[in-house]
């Protein structure tokens, strides 16, 4: 009987063991992830390890910020190893992977963190030119990157520095959304501002911001001239005072100033100049007859001056007119200036010719050596009675019923 029991026991044992073998082969060890680390620094060598009992070589799908690829594993003593290629392990960001075995059940993500170092300070600044006065500003944007060209982690300290005249300032800013930025406001004065930044011991280059004067404020003007006579020869020079903005900064060189001159006939003459060191100058020739000018200057749309008045005295009090050669030759002169000197060449003299109260022609000539001579040719002006009027330096003389023959 005990034999029977032993047999039964043995049989049972064999049966059991065969069962367990069957079970074992049914649940062959599925591939399992061994690697537990999910945070790496960029540049680290990343290897994903899996345990497996079967000799299969599934591909590993792997995807990071810039792209995706498939990796082939190496099987070593039942451990599958996938070395993440450098172009994935050197870039910051989430990396997702999936093992492409039969079940496709293994997947996950790990994170590549940027290095805690700064290799380059990518700096952008703009606008490069701002206005003095404390309301305008330029913006400094810094992207500190590590040696593998990854933006550094959020909340990395960046020192934004700028120098202006006597002041040197440093402000702490922190990276957020991959960048750090600061608005740098102008001061009351114009000038050049130097900007730079620093993070973790690495400094950026120097950037220059031009702080130019704000818009000009109203100014005054003056005129200088050699004499006050309307000789049509000398030049009057207009100058502005030093044009400044409201903070007392001299406006930029080249600010365009227009001088408007209104004469007695309400005609408008115009002359222009650009500023150098805040002063603009413009020139205009004297009138050749007695006149009174009102002058006002503008920086278009921004500032203007008070008006000033200028008087031009007549340079010629009187002159002679001589008719000769059957009245066909008319000599005007001598045209004498304020000291009795002959007027400089080039004074305009006009001769208006009328016949039977009808205007025929106006002849214009310029003076030479103090005289002007008109010759009326018989072929053009037939014999008969004519009226003449002569006009120069604002003085008109009338000669009626002159007979040409």
């Amino acid at each position: 009987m005990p034999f029977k029991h032993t047999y039964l026991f043995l049989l049972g044992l064999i049966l059991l063991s065969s069962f367990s073998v069957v079970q074992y082969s049914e649940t062959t060890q599925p591939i399992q992830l061994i690697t537990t680390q999910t945070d790496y620094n960029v540049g680290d060598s990343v290897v994903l390890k899996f345990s497996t009992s079967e000799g299969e070589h599934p591909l590993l799908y792997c995807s990071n910020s810039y792209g995706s690829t498939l990796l082939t594993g190496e099987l070593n003593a039942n451990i599958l190893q996938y070395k993440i290629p450098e172009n994935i392990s050197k870039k910051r960001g989430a990396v997702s992977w999936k093992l492409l075995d039969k079940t496709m059940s293994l997947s996950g993500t790990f994170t590549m963190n940027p290095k805690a170092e700064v290799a380059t300070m990518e700096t952008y600044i703009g606008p490069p030119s701002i206005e003095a006065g404390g309301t305008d500003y330029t913006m400094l944007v810094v992207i500190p990157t590590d040696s593998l060209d990854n933006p550094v982690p959020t909340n990395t300290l960046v020192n934004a520095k700028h120098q202006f005249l006597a002041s040197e300032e440093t402000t702490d800013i922190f990276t957020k959304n991959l960048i750090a930025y600061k608005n740098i406001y102008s001061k009351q004065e114009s000038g050049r501002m130097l900007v730079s930044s620093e993070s973790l011991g690495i400094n950026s280059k120097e950037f220059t911001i031009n702080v130019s004067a704000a818009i000009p404020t109203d100014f005054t003007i003056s005129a200088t001239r050699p004499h006050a006579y309307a000789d049509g020869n000398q030049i009057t020079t207009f100058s502005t005072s030093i044009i400044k903005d409201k903070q007392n900064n001299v406006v930029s060189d080249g600010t365009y100033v227009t001088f408007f001159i209104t004469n007695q006939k309400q005609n408008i003459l115009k002359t222009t100049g650009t500023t150098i060191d805040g002063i603009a100058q413009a020139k205009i020739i004297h009138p050749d007859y007695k006149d009174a000018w009102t002058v006002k200057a503008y920086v278009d749309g921004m500032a203007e001056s008070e008006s000033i008045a200028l008087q031009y005295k007549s340079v010629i009090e009187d002159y002679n007119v001589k008719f000769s050669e059957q009245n066909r030759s008319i000599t005007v002169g001598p045209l004498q200036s304020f000291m009795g000197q002959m007027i400089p060449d080039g004074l305009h003299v006009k001769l208006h010719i009328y016949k039977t109260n009808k205007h025929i022609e106006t002849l214009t000539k310029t003076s030479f050596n103090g005289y002007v001579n008109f010759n009326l040719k018989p072929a053009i002006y037939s014999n008969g009675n004519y009226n003449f009027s002569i006009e120069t330096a604002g003085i008109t003389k009338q000669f009626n019923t002159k007979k040409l023959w």
Partner: protein
Amino acid sequence: MVGLNKNILRTILIISYIMVIALIISGLSAVFSYLNTGADRSSMLHTEIQKVEQYMPQLVWEPLQNEGRPMDNENLNALQNDYLDAWYVKQIAYKTNKTAGIKDYYTDSARKNLFDFIALNKAEDITIDATTLKHHPTLEFFSEDGQLAVITDRNVVEYKSVFKAEQLVLETTETSTYKMVFLLEDGFWRIRHLVKEHSEPYTFDTEPINTANLDIKGINYYPQANPWDMFGDDFSTSILSKDFDIIKNAGLNSVRIFVQYEDFGKANVKPEKLEKLKQTLDLAEAHSLKVVLTLFDFYGDYSVMDWTLNQRHAETIVSTFKNHKALLAWDIKNEPNLDFESRGKPNVIAWLDNMIDFVKSVDASHPVTIGWSNTQSAPILKDKVDIVSFHYYENLEHLNDAIKTLKTEIPNKPLVLQEFGLSSYSGLWKPNGASDEDQANYHKKIQEHIAANNLQFMSWTLYDFTYIPKAVVGSLPWRKNAQEHYGFIDKNGQTKPAFDYIAKP
């Protein structure tokens, strides 16, 4: 006699002379006009660059609350265009492993990373066919000088199929969050830094739609005069109204209508087509008929790069009509299994799978189906569709078995026999074809099968047609002629014997 001959000779000589001169002149003028072409001033400078819409994923900006300078529409548009183009050139680059176009949309340092990937994938013979379906960008920062911007694009839905040695090894849909720094260089907004902050597999869950109350007794409908061009110039509401009357009075309750992809304007659906479709649905509603709307008729590309455009098409149509009372179901595509061979089965199925998700994301309340051309394909995507539709033009003897098999495979979804019919054409091209009586017999029999198996049905079709466009069955006369005679009503408007069995055995 001599004189006559001479005259004939003269005439011939003169005419041939004129002919020769005419030939020379036409030849010279052809040369002259050829030399003049291509020098058109307007074309010299390539001033008119047409924007081709090639990548239009769903993109919704978060409200603008960015730091730095306030953003304006002009700049935002430029940024958005270049951002999408950056994705597009990247997808093309990874699909072809070529670098064309990358340099326009990635800065010097950023493009290096893409080139590295391309080199790696090229060496390993890996290609990636990918597209993005949804973008939710937030503008984080815009610099004072307008030259730098930072965007966070949250929950970008990315579909990828990954190929190794031209074998598909993985299809995956991920949702990821990207942070990007853009620089404005040479008039392009270029990506300078790109950081994927988060990524996880994308899942799209929908509530199951109750289809228990469905009882489709319908017919595939095209007007008699303009089949396959229903919404063209010959669109007529009076004809539709008359036909819907016939259908309703025959005891049917629904029609299946087709929306042609290109005819409707592809990604930018033409408003006039939408208006005609709306009138059709309104008429159906007035006649108490329900409508199964088949999208993407005459479309056969399925390529991943085309998906975003397909989605814009579906989005317009589905969102316009999702609340229409006449709507019964969305039929995603007519007989897509016929494209398996030419377009690749995985490709077509991936397209259908994603399109179902997309249609359901726009309209969660109407059932979705696919019009498979046979019973063998019908179980594909059976878990995604709400109604399983299949067509049956084979021998009626095997119908019962086919349905039995289907019912065991798909026990819990309604089955719709969505197309069936018999051409009553018998003539020169098919001497021993079926007669009108055979057709009537066929419909009687199949209605018995339908009743016995408790199927829902939509028959093909109301009318015999006089004109079949080439795109439907090709230009072979025996096919065309057969296709013309599937109707219940003949060319003269007389009901054929089969009409008695249009709705019941």
